[in-house]
């Protein structure tokens, strides 16, 4: 919630209110110092910086924020969270934006990142554990980068790094958990 005894923006727009409620973080406390962007390892590749994401939320620029590549290029390293002088968990904020972007199907700016995560979870839903070979194959097909990493296979294979058979312990548990999660998320909170 907004820090008292300080000059903070009034939470005036729906997007800001939504993000604050969803994360429990005080977005209005951000005074745009830019430490988050300075420390961010992937900021150089983003269309807008973490500081601009925070400003975007304050100003209610929902489309600019949710359609950005930046929220999908955040790797959750949490340097921003560690160094924020206003103690905002910025990584958590960006993570929740990613979830929202995913839920609203607005992942086009970094479609392959979303495809990777979806494929990963699909593997986990199937087997209970991640099958790395299956992830690689399915990712290549779904992202249509069919030959991605194919040249690496011989050196990985010769070192016995590739397990062809998935481990399936816990598969039924994960299916049940995933089904219950879906059910719970359908209920309005």
């Amino acid at each position, binding site marked *: 919630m907004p820090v008292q005894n300080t000059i903070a923006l009034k939470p005036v727009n729906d997007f800001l209110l939504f993000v604050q409620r969803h994360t429990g973080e005080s977005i209005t406390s951000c005074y745009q110092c830019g430490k988050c962007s300075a420390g961010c*390892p*992937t900021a*150089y*590749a983003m269309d807008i910086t973490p500081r601009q994401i925070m400003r975007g939320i304050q100003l209610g620029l929902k489309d600019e924020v949710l359609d950005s590549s930046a929220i999908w*290029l955040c*790797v*959750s*390293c*949490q*340097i921003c*969270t*560690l160094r924020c002088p206003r103690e905002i*968990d910025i990584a958590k904020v960006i*993570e*929740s934006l*990613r*979830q929202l972007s*995913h839920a609203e199907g607005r992942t086009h700016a*970094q479609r*392959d*990142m*979303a*495809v*990777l*995560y*979806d494929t*990963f*979870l699909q593997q*986990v839903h199937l087997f*209970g*554990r*991640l*099958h*790395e*070979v299956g992830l*690689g194959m399915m*990712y290549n097909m779904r*992202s249509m980068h069919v030959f*991605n*990493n194919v040249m*690496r296979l011989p*050196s*990985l294979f010769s*070192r*016995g*790094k*590739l*397990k062809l058979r998935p*481990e399936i*312990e*816990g598969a039924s*548990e*994960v299916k*049940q*958990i*995933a089904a*219950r*999660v879906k059910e*719970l*998320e359908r209920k309005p909170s």
Partner: protein
Amino acid sequence: MVESDHSSKVGARTYSYYPGCSLHGTAAEYDISTQLVCQKLGIELRELEEWVCCGASAAHSTDHLLSLALPAHTLKQAEEKGLPLAVPCAMCFSRLRTTIHEIKNKDTLNLVNSAIGKELGEPVAVESMLQMLADESISLPVTKPLNGLKVACYYGCLLARPPEVVGIDDAENPQTMERLLVRLGAEAIDWGLKTTCCGAGVAFPRLDIVLKLSHRLLSLAQKSGADCVAVACPMCHANLDMYQKDMIAKFGQKTKLPVIYFTQLMGLALGFSPKELLLDKHLTDPLPMLREKELA
């Protein structure tokens, strides 16, 4: 190697063991070296039977509740065993600790309980393998000190952040791994990128990012005089070890730098052979350097 007879006596250093998916796949070296080292040090690891994936970045990037429910399932299994949980993988460790942190909130706990269909009680202690093995009350029967080996200790992100969740000595300049390796006879070099991200899990879609970030780390470690980089995370290991050929092609990096799990270095000092420790499985071969140092 993992003790599965649960009727056997529980020693002071008996842990449930959660290897995670990577250690059963591309990071088998980390799994095997961890088990050998623990055995040598009298630490018993009992692998949870039906553990499931922690969900990693895929879950917490797309589905908040799922990202808590998957680790919670494992926490419940560990709770039923009543033993502290030892976790080598930095990602799994982070997800488990984050879940414990988040279910302190009653509403979150209720939701997570509904998702896993069980009631979570008091969670067991979850420890990273690094923190566990760096405990200075454990005596280290060193038979082959790592004399003359200069190591750049690399923590990456998730063993260092957020400090209140992971419980590290210093989030910007941790010394846990350094102290451990110095006890084994190695020299820990001082360098500035030990908690800077290597590019994490984006290699499939954005190899360019991994190459840039990992190359920066390796170059600085090399310039700082390191013979190798020590890691405690399978993702960091993959990024730093697997793509050095690509880095040479892209950035003209001069020489390769071996990237070794800290448990493999421990294993060497405790008398295991490079082959037992699967040191021949890395893509950047550490054996020539280790032979030069008379450690292999």
